[in-house]
Protein backbone atom coordinates (compact mmCIF):
# COMPACT_ATOMS: atom_id res chain seq x y z
CA UNK A 1 0.00 0.00 0.00
CA UNK A 2 2.87 2.35 0.88
CA UNK A 3 4.49 1.65 -2.47
CA UNK A 4 1.19 2.39 -4.25
CA UNK A 5 0.87 5.72 -2.43
CA UNK A 6 4.45 6.61 -3.32
CA UNK A 7 3.99 5.67 -6.99
CA UNK A 8 0.64 7.47 -7.16
CA UNK A 9 2.20 10.71 -5.91
CA UNK A 10 5.13 10.31 -8.34
CA UNK A 11 2.68 9.82 -11.21
CA UNK A 12 0.74 12.94 -10.20
CA UNK A 13 3.93 15.03 -10.22
CA UNK A 14 4.96 13.41 -13.49
CA UNK A 15 1.59 14.39 -15.02
CA UNK A 16 1.97 17.91 -13.68
CA UNK A 17 5.48 18.23 -15.10
CA UNK A 18 4.58 16.56 -18.41
CA UNK A 19 1.51 18.72 -18.86
CA UNK A 20 3.51 21.86 -18.10
CA UNK A 21 6.15 20.91 -20.67
CA UNK A 22 3.47 20.17 -23.24
CA UNK A 23 1.62 23.43 -22.58
CA UNK A 24 4.78 25.56 -22.63
CA UNK A 25 6.01 23.75 -25.75
CA UNK A 26 2.72 24.57 -27.45
CA UNK A 27 3.33 28.24 -26.72
CA UNK A 28 0.63 28.49 -24.05
CA UNK A 29 1.86 29.87 -20.79
CA UNK A 30 -1.06 29.13 -18.51
CA UNK A 31 -0.60 25.60 -17.16
CA UNK A 32 -3.65 26.53 -15.10
CA UNK A 33 -5.80 24.31 -12.95
CA UNK A 34 -4.53 20.97 -14.27
CA UNK A 35 -1.04 21.70 -12.99
CA UNK A 36 -2.33 22.87 -9.62
CA UNK A 37 -4.73 19.92 -9.19
CA UNK A 38 -2.04 17.40 -10.17
CA UNK A 39 0.32 18.95 -7.60
CA UNK A 40 -2.44 18.90 -4.95
CA UNK A 41 -3.19 15.21 -5.67
CA UNK A 42 0.54 14.42 -5.57
CA UNK A 43 0.84 16.11 -2.17
CA UNK A 44 -2.26 14.25 -0.92
CA UNK A 45 -0.79 10.89 -2.04
CA UNK A 46 2.51 11.78 -0.35
CA UNK A 47 0.59 12.63 2.82
CA UNK A 48 -1.06 9.20 2.57
CA UNK A 49 2.34 7.52 2.14
CA UNK A 50 3.83 9.39 5.11
CA UNK A 51 0.85 8.59 7.33
CA UNK A 52 1.14 4.88 6.44
CA UNK A 53 4.86 4.97 7.24
CA UNK A 54 4.18 6.81 10.47
CA UNK A 55 1.56 4.24 11.50
CA UNK A 56 3.88 1.36 10.65
CA UNK A 57 6.84 2.77 12.58
CA UNK A 58 4.84 4.44 15.37
CA UNK A 59 7.04 7.52 14.79
CA UNK A 60 7.50 10.47 12.49
CA UNK A 61 8.37 8.92 9.08
CA UNK A 62 11.84 10.42 8.75
CA UNK A 63 14.02 7.48 9.61
CA UNK A 64 15.38 6.71 6.12
CA UNK A 65 16.74 8.78 3.24
CA UNK A 66 13.73 8.01 0.95
CA UNK A 67 11.32 9.06 3.72
CA UNK A 68 13.28 12.25 4.26
CA UNK A 69 13.19 13.06 0.56
CA UNK A 70 9.45 12.39 0.33
CA UNK A 71 8.85 14.58 3.40
CA UNK A 72 10.99 17.34 1.86
CA UNK A 73 9.24 17.26 -1.52
CA UNK A 74 5.88 17.13 0.31
CA UNK A 75 6.86 20.28 2.24
CA UNK A 76 7.86 22.08 -0.98
CA UNK A 77 4.60 21.07 -2.68
CA UNK A 78 2.52 22.10 0.33
CA UNK A 79 4.17 25.51 0.65
CA UNK A 80 3.69 26.04 -3.09
CA UNK A 81 0.00 25.07 -2.80
CA UNK A 82 -0.42 27.63 -0.03
CA UNK A 83 1.55 30.54 -1.48
CA UNK A 84 0.95 29.84 -5.18
CA UNK A 85 -2.67 31.02 -5.27
CA UNK A 86 -2.29 33.72 -2.61
CA UNK A 87 0.75 35.46 -4.12
CA UNK A 88 -0.31 34.66 -7.69
CA UNK A 89 3.27 34.03 -8.75
CA UNK A 90 2.68 33.09 -12.34
CA UNK A 91 4.36 29.88 -13.56
CA UNK A 92 5.72 29.02 -10.10
CA UNK A 93 3.96 25.65 -10.30
CA UNK A 94 5.68 24.99 -13.61
CA UNK A 95 9.07 25.50 -11.96
CA UNK A 96 8.20 23.71 -8.71
CA UNK A 97 6.95 20.50 -10.37
CA UNK A 98 10.37 19.39 -11.73
CA UNK A 99 12.11 19.86 -8.36
CA UNK A 100 9.41 17.98 -6.48
CA UNK A 101 9.37 15.26 -9.14
CA UNK A 102 13.17 14.88 -9.00
CA UNK A 103 13.15 14.42 -5.21
CA UNK A 104 10.30 11.98 -5.51
CA UNK A 105 12.00 9.88 -8.22
CA UNK A 106 15.19 9.67 -6.18
CA UNK A 107 13.08 8.58 -3.19
CA UNK A 108 11.39 5.86 -5.27
CA UNK A 109 14.67 4.57 -6.72
CA UNK A 110 16.74 4.56 -3.53
CA UNK A 111 16.75 1.38 -1.45
CA UNK A 112 14.95 1.76 1.84
CA UNK A 113 18.20 1.33 3.85
CA UNK A 114 18.61 1.02 7.59
CA UNK A 115 16.40 3.12 9.84
CA UNK A 116 18.05 5.72 12.01
CA UNK A 117 17.51 5.05 15.70
CA UNK A 118 16.97 8.79 15.96
CA UNK A 119 13.20 8.46 15.74
CA UNK A 120 12.27 6.59 18.83
CA UNK A 121 8.86 8.02 19.68
CA UNK A 122 9.57 11.41 21.24
CA UNK A 123 7.39 14.38 20.34
CA UNK A 124 10.22 16.91 20.64
CA UNK A 125 12.51 14.94 18.35
CA UNK A 126 9.68 14.54 15.85
CA UNK A 127 8.85 18.23 16.06
CA UNK A 128 12.52 19.04 15.50
CA UNK A 129 12.74 16.79 12.42
CA UNK A 130 9.40 17.80 10.91
CA UNK A 131 10.04 21.54 11.39
CA UNK A 132 13.50 21.18 9.83
CA UNK A 133 12.06 19.61 6.72
CA UNK A 134 9.23 22.11 6.40
CA UNK A 135 11.93 24.82 6.72
CA UNK A 136 13.87 23.13 3.92
CA UNK A 137 10.60 23.07 1.94
CA UNK A 138 10.48 26.88 2.23
CA UNK A 139 14.17 27.10 1.26
CA UNK A 140 13.42 24.78 -1.69
CA UNK A 141 10.69 27.05 -2.92
CA UNK A 142 13.01 30.05 -2.46
CA UNK A 143 15.46 28.16 -4.70
CA UNK A 144 12.70 27.73 -7.32
CA UNK A 145 11.89 31.46 -7.11
CA UNK A 146 15.65 32.12 -7.43
CA UNK A 147 15.79 30.16 -10.68
CA UNK A 148 12.78 32.05 -11.97
CA UNK A 149 14.48 35.33 -11.01
CA UNK A 150 17.67 34.39 -12.87
CA UNK A 151 15.70 33.32 -15.93
CA UNK A 152 13.67 36.54 -15.99
CA UNK A 153 16.73 38.68 -15.27
CA UNK A 154 18.56 36.96 -18.14
CA UNK A 155 15.61 37.71 -20.43
CA UNK A 156 15.69 41.37 -19.41
CA UNK A 157 19.45 41.63 -19.90
CA UNK A 158 19.30 39.93 -23.29
CA UNK A 159 17.05 42.71 -24.66
CA UNK A 160 15.49 40.07 -26.95
CA UNK A 161 13.13 38.33 -24.57
CA UNK A 162 11.56 35.00 -25.51
CA UNK A 163 7.76 34.58 -25.27
CA UNK A 164 8.03 33.12 -21.75
CA UNK A 165 9.28 36.55 -20.56
CA UNK A 166 5.78 38.01 -20.80
CA UNK A 167 4.45 35.31 -18.48
CA UNK A 168 7.14 35.23 -15.81
CA UNK A 169 6.62 37.45 -12.75
CA UNK A 170 8.57 40.72 -12.31
CA UNK A 171 12.04 40.31 -10.80
CA UNK A 172 11.19 42.58 -7.86
CA UNK A 173 8.20 40.38 -6.99
CA UNK A 174 10.39 37.28 -7.22
CA UNK A 175 13.08 38.88 -5.04
CA UNK A 176 10.41 39.66 -2.40
CA UNK A 177 9.08 36.09 -2.63
CA UNK A 178 12.61 34.70 -2.12
CA UNK A 179 13.12 36.96 0.90
CA UNK A 180 9.80 35.99 2.51
CA UNK A 181 10.38 32.29 1.93
CA UNK A 182 13.86 32.54 3.39
CA UNK A 183 12.48 34.26 6.50
CA UNK A 184 9.80 31.57 6.88
CA UNK A 185 12.40 28.82 6.42
CA UNK A 186 14.86 30.48 8.78
CA UNK A 187 12.23 30.95 11.47
CA UNK A 188 11.12 27.31 11.23
CA UNK A 189 14.72 26.06 11.18
CA UNK A 190 15.49 28.08 14.31
CA UNK A 191 12.36 26.67 15.99
CA UNK A 192 13.40 23.18 15.00
CA UNK A 193 16.83 23.73 16.57
CA UNK A 194 15.15 24.92 19.76
CA UNK A 195 12.97 21.78 19.75
CA UNK A 196 16.08 19.65 19.18
CA UNK A 197 17.88 21.28 22.10
CA UNK A 198 14.84 20.76 24.30
CA UNK A 199 14.83 17.07 23.40
CA UNK A 200 18.55 16.74 24.32
CA UNK A 201 19.13 14.65 21.24
CA UNK A 202 22.55 13.27 20.48
CA UNK A 203 23.61 13.68 16.88
CA UNK A 204 26.83 13.04 15.02
CA UNK A 205 29.41 15.83 14.78
CA UNK A 206 29.02 15.90 10.99
CA UNK A 207 25.29 16.47 11.27
CA UNK A 208 25.75 19.10 13.95
CA UNK A 209 28.27 21.10 11.90
CA UNK A 210 26.21 20.71 8.76
CA UNK A 211 23.10 22.03 10.52
CA UNK A 212 25.00 24.99 12.01
CA UNK A 213 26.62 25.74 8.62
CA UNK A 214 23.25 25.87 6.86
CA UNK A 215 21.73 28.03 9.62
CA UNK A 216 24.70 30.45 9.48
CA UNK A 217 24.57 30.61 5.67
CA UNK A 218 20.87 31.52 5.69
CA UNK A 219 21.41 34.00 8.55
CA UNK A 220 24.20 35.66 6.55
CA UNK A 221 22.00 35.70 3.44
CA UNK A 222 19.15 37.40 5.30
CA UNK A 223 21.47 39.89 6.97
CA UNK A 224 23.03 40.74 3.60
CA UNK A 225 19.58 41.25 2.08
CA UNK A 226 18.49 43.43 4.98
CA UNK A 227 21.56 45.66 4.71
CA UNK A 228 21.33 45.99 0.90
CA UNK A 229 24.60 44.12 0.43
CA UNK A 230 23.36 42.07 -2.53
CA UNK A 231 21.87 42.94 -5.88
CA UNK A 232 18.81 40.89 -6.79
CA UNK A 233 20.89 38.62 -9.01
CA UNK A 234 23.42 37.77 -6.30
CA UNK A 235 20.65 37.22 -3.78
CA UNK A 236 18.86 34.81 -6.15
CA UNK A 237 22.09 32.93 -6.92
CA UNK A 238 22.95 32.59 -3.21
CA UNK A 239 19.41 31.51 -2.23
CA UNK A 240 19.42 28.82 -4.94
CA UNK A 241 22.95 27.54 -4.39
CA UNK A 242 22.59 27.38 -0.61
CA UNK A 243 19.54 25.16 -0.99
CA UNK A 244 21.23 22.98 -3.62
CA UNK A 245 24.23 22.61 -1.32
CA UNK A 246 21.93 21.56 1.51
CA UNK A 247 20.06 19.19 -0.81
CA UNK A 248 23.26 17.45 -1.88
CA UNK A 249 24.68 17.28 1.63
CA UNK A 250 21.46 16.34 3.47
CA UNK A 251 21.26 12.67 2.32
CA UNK A 252 25.05 12.28 2.71
CA UNK A 253 24.95 13.54 6.27
CA UNK A 254 21.82 11.47 6.97
CA UNK A 255 23.60 8.40 5.62
CA UNK A 256 26.79 9.08 7.60
CA UNK A 257 24.76 9.66 10.74
CA UNK A 258 22.83 6.36 10.52
CA UNK A 259 23.92 4.16 13.32
CA UNK A 260 25.71 6.89 15.22
CA UNK A 261 22.53 8.32 16.73
Amino acid at each position, binding site marked *: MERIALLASTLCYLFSFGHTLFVLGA*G*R*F*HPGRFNFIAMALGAAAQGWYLSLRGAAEHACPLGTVPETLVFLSWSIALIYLVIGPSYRISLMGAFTAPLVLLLQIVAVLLPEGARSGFFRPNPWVETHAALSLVAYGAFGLACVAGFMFLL*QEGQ*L*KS*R*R*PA*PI*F*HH*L*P*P*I*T*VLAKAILRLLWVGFFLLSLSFAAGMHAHITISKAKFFFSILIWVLYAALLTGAK*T*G*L*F*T*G*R*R*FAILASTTFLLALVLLPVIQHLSTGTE
Partner: protein
Amino acid sequence: MNILCAGINHRTAHLEVRERFAVREDEMAGMLARLRQIEGVSGVVMLSTCNRVELYASGLCTLRALDGFRSILAERTGLEAPLYHHDTPQAVRHLFRVASGLDSMVIGETEILGQVKKAYSIANEAGAATRSLHKLFQHAFRVAKTVRTETQITSGPTSIGSVAVELAGKIFGSLEGRRVMILGAGEISERTARSLQSRGVRSVIVSNRTYERAASLAAEIGGMALHFDHWENAIVDVDILISSTNAPFALLTPERIAPLLKLRRGDPLFVIDLAVPRDADPAINELDGLFLYDIDSLEQIAAQSLDIRRQEVVRCESLIDHHVGGFLSWLKTAREPGIPK
Protein backbone atom coordinates in the same frame (compact mmCIF):
# COMPACT_ATOMS: atom_id res chain seq x y z
CA MET B 1 -33.46 33.63 -39.21
CA ASN B 2 -30.57 35.48 -40.83
CA ILE B 3 -27.85 37.68 -39.43
CA LEU B 4 -26.55 40.66 -41.38
CA CYS B 5 -23.38 42.60 -40.71
CA ALA B 6 -22.79 45.82 -42.68
CA GLY B 7 -20.44 48.70 -42.10
CA ILE B 8 -17.21 50.55 -42.75
CA ASN B 9 -13.88 50.12 -41.02
CA HIS B 10 -10.25 51.29 -41.05
CA ARG B 11 -9.53 49.11 -44.06
CA THR B 12 -12.36 50.33 -46.26
CA ALA B 13 -12.54 54.00 -45.30
CA HIS B 14 -10.12 56.74 -44.22
CA LEU B 15 -10.52 58.48 -40.89
CA GLU B 16 -12.15 61.54 -42.57
CA VAL B 17 -14.86 59.25 -43.94
CA ARG B 18 -15.26 57.15 -40.79
CA GLU B 19 -15.71 60.20 -38.58
CA ARG B 20 -18.62 61.37 -40.75
CA PHE B 21 -20.49 58.12 -40.18
CA ALA B 22 -19.64 57.68 -36.50
CA VAL B 23 -22.63 57.56 -34.16
CA ARG B 24 -22.18 59.15 -30.74
CA GLU B 25 -23.38 57.31 -27.65
CA ASP B 26 -26.15 59.84 -27.00
CA GLU B 27 -27.44 59.37 -30.57
CA MET B 28 -27.39 55.59 -30.43
CA ALA B 29 -30.85 54.94 -28.98
CA GLY B 30 -32.49 57.07 -31.70
CA MET B 31 -30.40 55.36 -34.37
CA LEU B 32 -31.35 51.90 -33.12
CA ALA B 33 -35.04 52.85 -33.11
CA ARG B 34 -34.81 54.01 -36.74
CA LEU B 35 -32.93 50.88 -37.80
CA ARG B 36 -35.56 48.64 -36.21
CA GLN B 37 -38.21 50.25 -38.39
CA ILE B 38 -36.59 48.86 -41.54
CA GLU B 39 -38.88 46.25 -43.03
CA GLY B 40 -37.80 42.68 -42.29
CA VAL B 41 -35.50 43.67 -39.45
CA SER B 42 -36.34 42.20 -36.05
CA GLY B 43 -33.33 43.27 -33.99
CA VAL B 44 -30.24 45.47 -34.25
CA VAL B 45 -26.97 46.18 -32.48
CA MET B 46 -24.77 49.01 -33.69
CA LEU B 47 -21.05 49.26 -33.04
CA SER B 48 -19.42 52.66 -33.50
CA THR B 49 -15.74 53.08 -32.61
CA CYS B 50 -12.89 55.16 -34.03
CA ASN B 51 -12.05 52.30 -36.39
CA ARG B 52 -15.46 51.02 -37.41
CA VAL B 53 -19.17 51.70 -37.73
CA GLU B 54 -21.05 48.41 -38.04
CA LEU B 55 -24.62 47.22 -37.92
CA TYR B 56 -25.55 43.72 -36.77
CA ALA B 57 -29.15 42.92 -37.61
CA SER B 58 -31.35 39.87 -37.32
CA GLY B 59 -34.27 39.39 -39.65
CA LEU B 60 -35.78 37.54 -42.54
CA CYS B 61 -34.53 39.68 -45.41
CA THR B 62 -30.98 40.96 -45.03
CA LEU B 63 -31.01 42.70 -48.43
CA ARG B 64 -33.76 45.07 -47.30
CA ALA B 65 -31.94 45.66 -44.04
CA LEU B 66 -28.81 46.58 -45.95
CA ASP B 67 -30.66 49.02 -48.23
CA GLY B 68 -32.42 50.56 -45.24
CA PHE B 69 -29.12 51.01 -43.37
CA ARG B 70 -27.52 52.61 -46.43
CA SER B 71 -30.44 55.04 -46.78
CA ILE B 72 -30.35 56.03 -43.11
CA LEU B 73 -26.61 56.70 -43.25
CA ALA B 74 -26.97 58.71 -46.48
CA GLU B 75 -29.75 60.74 -44.91
CA ARG B 76 -27.60 61.48 -41.82
CA THR B 77 -24.43 62.46 -43.62
CA GLY B 78 -25.38 63.30 -47.18
CA LEU B 79 -22.75 60.75 -48.29
CA GLU B 80 -22.95 57.33 -49.87
CA ALA B 81 -21.35 54.94 -47.36
CA PRO B 82 -18.77 52.52 -48.83
CA LEU B 83 -20.40 49.63 -46.97
CA TYR B 84 -19.18 46.07 -46.88
CA HIS B 85 -21.70 43.47 -45.83
CA HIS B 86 -21.85 39.84 -44.78
CA ASP B 87 -24.77 37.42 -44.39
CA THR B 88 -24.90 34.35 -42.17
CA PRO B 89 -22.50 32.60 -41.65
CA GLN B 90 -19.87 35.21 -42.62
CA ALA B 91 -21.58 37.85 -40.46
CA VAL B 92 -21.22 35.57 -37.43
CA ARG B 93 -17.56 34.90 -38.21
CA HIS B 94 -16.99 38.63 -38.70
CA LEU B 95 -18.37 39.53 -35.26
CA PHE B 96 -16.32 36.78 -33.61
CA ARG B 97 -13.19 38.10 -35.35
CA VAL B 98 -13.99 41.70 -34.37
CA ALA B 99 -14.61 40.82 -30.71
CA SER B 100 -11.36 38.81 -30.61
CA GLY B 101 -9.33 41.72 -31.97
CA LEU B 102 -8.42 39.94 -35.23
CA ASP B 103 -10.05 42.64 -37.34
CA SER B 104 -8.41 45.50 -35.44
CA MET B 105 -5.75 47.88 -36.74
CA VAL B 106 -3.32 46.47 -34.13
CA ILE B 107 -4.02 42.74 -34.19
CA GLY B 108 -5.03 41.37 -30.81
CA GLU B 109 -5.84 44.68 -29.12
CA THR B 110 -8.31 44.15 -26.35
CA GLU B 111 -10.11 47.50 -26.18
CA ILE B 112 -12.48 46.41 -28.94
CA LEU B 113 -14.06 43.73 -26.73
CA GLY B 114 -15.13 46.41 -24.24
CA GLN B 115 -16.55 48.45 -27.12
CA VAL B 116 -18.52 45.47 -28.46
CA LYS B 117 -19.86 44.81 -24.95
CA LYS B 118 -20.88 48.46 -24.65
CA ALA B 119 -22.67 48.38 -28.04
CA TYR B 120 -24.55 45.24 -27.01
CA SER B 121 -25.45 46.72 -23.64
CA ILE B 122 -26.88 49.88 -25.27
CA ALA B 123 -28.95 47.80 -27.71
CA ASN B 124 -30.12 45.63 -24.85
CA GLU B 125 -31.21 48.63 -22.78
CA ALA B 126 -32.99 50.08 -25.79
CA GLY B 127 -34.82 46.77 -26.30
CA ALA B 128 -33.33 46.49 -29.80
CA ALA B 129 -31.61 43.11 -29.44
CA THR B 130 -33.54 39.96 -30.26
CA ARG B 131 -32.99 36.47 -28.89
CA SER B 132 -30.68 35.49 -31.75
CA LEU B 133 -28.64 38.69 -31.29
CA HIS B 134 -28.43 38.07 -27.54
CA LYS B 135 -27.14 34.59 -28.24
CA LEU B 136 -24.79 35.84 -30.97
CA PHE B 137 -23.16 38.50 -28.79
CA GLN B 138 -22.92 36.29 -25.71
CA HIS B 139 -21.24 33.71 -27.91
CA ALA B 140 -18.89 36.39 -29.31
CA PHE B 141 -17.79 37.36 -25.77
CA ARG B 142 -17.05 33.71 -24.99
CA VAL B 143 -15.09 33.32 -28.23
CA ALA B 144 -13.03 36.44 -27.47
CA LYS B 145 -12.20 35.11 -24.01
CA THR B 146 -11.23 31.70 -25.39
CA VAL B 147 -9.07 33.23 -28.12
CA ARG B 148 -7.32 35.43 -25.55
CA THR B 149 -6.59 32.65 -23.09
CA GLU B 150 -5.77 29.83 -25.50
CA THR B 151 -3.57 31.74 -27.94
CA GLN B 152 -0.95 34.47 -27.74
CA ILE B 153 -2.96 36.94 -29.81
CA THR B 154 -2.71 39.59 -27.09
CA SER B 155 0.92 38.77 -26.35
CA GLY B 156 3.41 41.55 -25.74
CA PRO B 157 3.40 45.31 -26.19
CA THR B 158 3.27 46.87 -29.66
CA SER B 159 4.48 50.49 -29.28
CA ILE B 160 7.62 52.05 -27.77
CA GLY B 161 5.64 53.53 -24.87
CA SER B 162 3.89 50.25 -24.10
CA VAL B 163 7.16 48.28 -24.44
CA ALA B 164 8.75 50.64 -21.88
CA VAL B 165 5.76 50.17 -19.56
CA GLU B 166 5.86 46.38 -19.93
CA LEU B 167 9.60 46.23 -19.28
CA ALA B 168 9.29 48.51 -16.26
CA GLY B 169 6.47 46.25 -15.03
CA LYS B 170 8.67 43.16 -15.46
CA ILE B 171 11.39 44.81 -13.39
CA PHE B 172 9.40 46.57 -10.67
CA GLY B 173 5.99 44.88 -10.67
CA SER B 174 3.59 47.68 -9.79
CA LEU B 175 4.78 51.10 -10.98
CA GLU B 176 2.82 52.80 -8.22
CA GLY B 177 5.11 55.23 -6.43
CA ARG B 178 8.11 54.61 -8.72
CA ARG B 179 10.34 57.57 -9.61
CA VAL B 180 11.37 58.53 -13.13
CA MET B 181 14.03 60.93 -14.35
CA ILE B 182 13.94 62.38 -17.87
CA LEU B 183 17.35 63.42 -19.11
CA GLY B 184 16.91 65.71 -22.14
CA ALA B 185 13.40 67.05 -22.59
CA GLY B 186 12.54 65.55 -25.99
CA GLU B 187 9.09 64.70 -27.33
CA ILE B 188 9.61 60.92 -27.31
CA SER B 189 10.86 61.03 -23.69
CA GLU B 190 7.78 62.98 -22.73
CA ARG B 191 5.50 60.43 -24.42
CA THR B 192 7.28 57.55 -22.71
CA ALA B 193 7.09 59.29 -19.34
CA ARG B 194 3.38 59.87 -19.84
CA SER B 195 2.89 56.15 -20.62
CA LEU B 196 4.64 55.34 -17.35
CA GLN B 197 2.58 57.93 -15.48
CA SER B 198 -0.59 56.31 -16.82
CA ARG B 199 0.53 53.13 -15.03
CA GLY B 200 1.04 54.72 -11.63
CA VAL B 201 4.42 56.48 -11.74
CA ARG B 202 3.95 59.57 -9.58
CA SER B 203 7.29 61.32 -9.31
CA VAL B 204 9.02 62.63 -12.46
CA ILE B 205 12.24 64.66 -12.47
CA VAL B 206 13.13 66.52 -15.68
CA SER B 207 16.71 67.56 -16.32
CA ASN B 208 17.76 69.41 -19.45
CA ARG B 209 20.75 71.49 -20.56
CA THR B 210 18.35 74.43 -20.87
CA TYR B 211 16.76 74.70 -17.46
CA GLU B 212 13.74 76.64 -18.81
CA ARG B 213 12.84 73.78 -21.15
CA ALA B 214 13.12 71.33 -18.24
CA ALA B 215 10.88 73.57 -16.10
CA SER B 216 8.33 73.90 -18.89
CA LEU B 217 8.11 70.12 -19.48
CA ALA B 218 8.05 69.47 -15.74
CA ALA B 219 5.10 71.84 -15.40
CA GLU B 220 3.31 70.12 -18.30
CA ILE B 221 3.60 66.61 -16.90
CA GLY B 222 3.39 67.50 -13.23
CA GLY B 223 7.06 66.79 -12.49
CA MET B 224 10.02 68.61 -10.99
CA ALA B 225 12.82 70.36 -12.91
CA LEU B 226 16.46 69.74 -12.04
CA HIS B 227 19.61 71.57 -13.17
CA PHE B 228 21.56 69.45 -15.62
CA ASP B 229 24.67 69.61 -13.45
CA HIS B 230 22.87 67.62 -10.72
CA TRP B 231 21.41 64.68 -12.65
CA GLU B 232 24.06 62.25 -11.41
CA ASN B 233 23.10 62.85 -7.78
CA ALA B 234 19.45 62.10 -8.58
CA ILE B 235 20.21 58.67 -10.09
CA VAL B 236 20.54 57.21 -6.62
CA ASP B 237 16.87 57.96 -5.92
CA VAL B 238 15.15 57.15 -9.23
CA ASP B 239 13.99 53.79 -10.56
CA ILE B 240 13.69 54.61 -14.24
CA LEU B 241 15.95 56.89 -16.28
CA ILE B 242 14.74 58.03 -19.71
CA SER B 243 17.54 59.65 -21.65
CA SER B 244 17.29 61.54 -24.94
CA THR B 245 19.83 64.35 -24.91
CA ASN B 246 21.63 65.70 -27.96
CA ALA B 247 25.02 64.94 -26.44
CA PRO B 248 27.58 63.90 -29.09
CA PHE B 249 29.15 61.39 -26.67
CA ALA B 250 27.88 58.82 -24.18
CA LEU B 251 26.78 60.40 -20.90
CA LEU B 252 26.05 57.14 -19.15
CA THR B 253 29.28 55.19 -18.97
CA PRO B 254 30.20 52.28 -16.68
CA GLU B 255 32.79 54.48 -14.93
CA ARG B 256 30.14 57.07 -14.12
CA ILE B 257 27.25 54.75 -13.31
CA ALA B 258 28.91 51.87 -11.41
CA PRO B 259 29.73 53.93 -8.26
CA LEU B 260 26.19 55.35 -8.23
CA LEU B 261 24.67 51.86 -8.46
CA LYS B 262 26.52 50.85 -5.31
CA LEU B 263 24.64 53.57 -3.42
CA ARG B 264 21.28 52.10 -4.48
CA ARG B 265 21.45 49.18 -2.01
CA GLY B 266 20.77 46.59 -4.70
CA ASP B 267 17.65 48.29 -6.14
CA PRO B 268 17.39 47.79 -9.91
CA LEU B 269 17.70 50.72 -12.33
CA PHE B 270 15.92 50.71 -15.69
CA VAL B 271 17.62 52.92 -18.30
CA ILE B 272 15.68 53.78 -21.46
CA ASP B 273 18.02 55.39 -23.98
CA LEU B 274 15.97 57.06 -26.70
CA ALA B 275 18.79 59.28 -28.03
CA VAL B 276 20.49 58.98 -31.43
CA PRO B 277 23.48 59.03 -31.11
CA ARG B 278 23.05 57.00 -27.94
CA ASP B 279 23.48 58.55 -24.51
CA ALA B 280 24.35 55.24 -22.86
CA ASP B 281 27.43 53.16 -23.44
CA PRO B 282 26.05 49.64 -24.15
CA ALA B 283 28.59 48.29 -21.63
CA ILE B 284 26.48 49.62 -18.73
CA ASN B 285 24.01 46.81 -19.44
CA GLU B 286 26.65 44.46 -18.03
CA LEU B 287 26.42 46.17 -14.64
CA ASP B 288 24.54 44.12 -12.08
CA GLY B 289 21.08 45.50 -11.34
CA LEU B 290 20.96 47.79 -14.38
CA PHE B 291 18.78 47.12 -17.43
CA LEU B 292 19.49 49.17 -20.54
CA TYR B 293 17.18 49.43 -23.54
CA ASP B 294 17.89 51.65 -26.54
CA ILE B 295 15.48 52.69 -29.27
CA ASP B 296 16.38 49.70 -31.46
CA SER B 297 15.81 47.13 -28.75
CA LEU B 298 12.45 48.71 -27.84
CA GLU B 299 11.36 48.69 -31.48
CA GLN B 300 12.51 45.10 -31.89
CA ILE B 301 10.37 43.98 -28.97
CA ALA B 302 7.34 45.79 -30.41
CA ALA B 303 7.96 44.13 -33.80
CA GLN B 304 8.50 40.76 -32.13
CA SER B 305 5.14 41.05 -30.34
CA LEU B 306 3.38 41.84 -33.60
CA ASP B 307 5.09 38.87 -35.26
CA ILE B 308 3.93 36.55 -32.49
CA ARG B 309 0.41 37.89 -32.84
CA ARG B 310 0.43 37.42 -36.62
CA GLN B 311 1.61 33.84 -36.21
CA GLU B 312 -1.26 33.20 -33.82
CA VAL B 313 -3.93 34.32 -36.28
CA VAL B 314 -4.25 30.84 -37.85
CA ARG B 315 -4.92 29.26 -34.44
CA CYS B 316 -7.43 31.97 -33.63
CA GLU B 317 -9.25 31.45 -36.94
CA SER B 318 -9.49 27.74 -36.27
CA LEU B 319 -11.00 28.38 -32.81
CA ILE B 320 -13.42 30.87 -34.35
CA ASP B 321 -14.45 28.38 -37.08
CA HIS B 322 -15.32 25.88 -34.38
CA HIS B 323 -17.47 28.43 -32.54
CA VAL B 324 -19.16 29.65 -35.73
CA GLY B 325 -20.23 26.03 -36.32
CA GLY B 326 -21.60 25.85 -32.78
CA PHE B 327 -23.59 29.06 -33.15
CA LEU B 328 -25.01 28.07 -36.56
CA SER B 329 -26.24 24.76 -35.14
CA TRP B 330 -28.12 26.71 -32.50
CA LEU B 331 -29.42 29.24 -35.05
CA LYS B 332 -30.87 26.47 -37.25
CA THR B 333 -33.15 25.31 -34.48
CA ALA B 334 -33.83 28.73 -32.96
CA ARG B 335 -37.04 30.66 -33.43
CA GLU B 336 -37.52 34.34 -32.82
CA PRO B 337 -40.70 35.05 -30.86
CA GLY B 338 -43.35 36.25 -33.30
CA ILE B 339 -41.34 35.41 -36.42
CA PRO B 340 -41.93 32.30 -38.55
CA LYS B 341 -38.92 30.04 -38.91
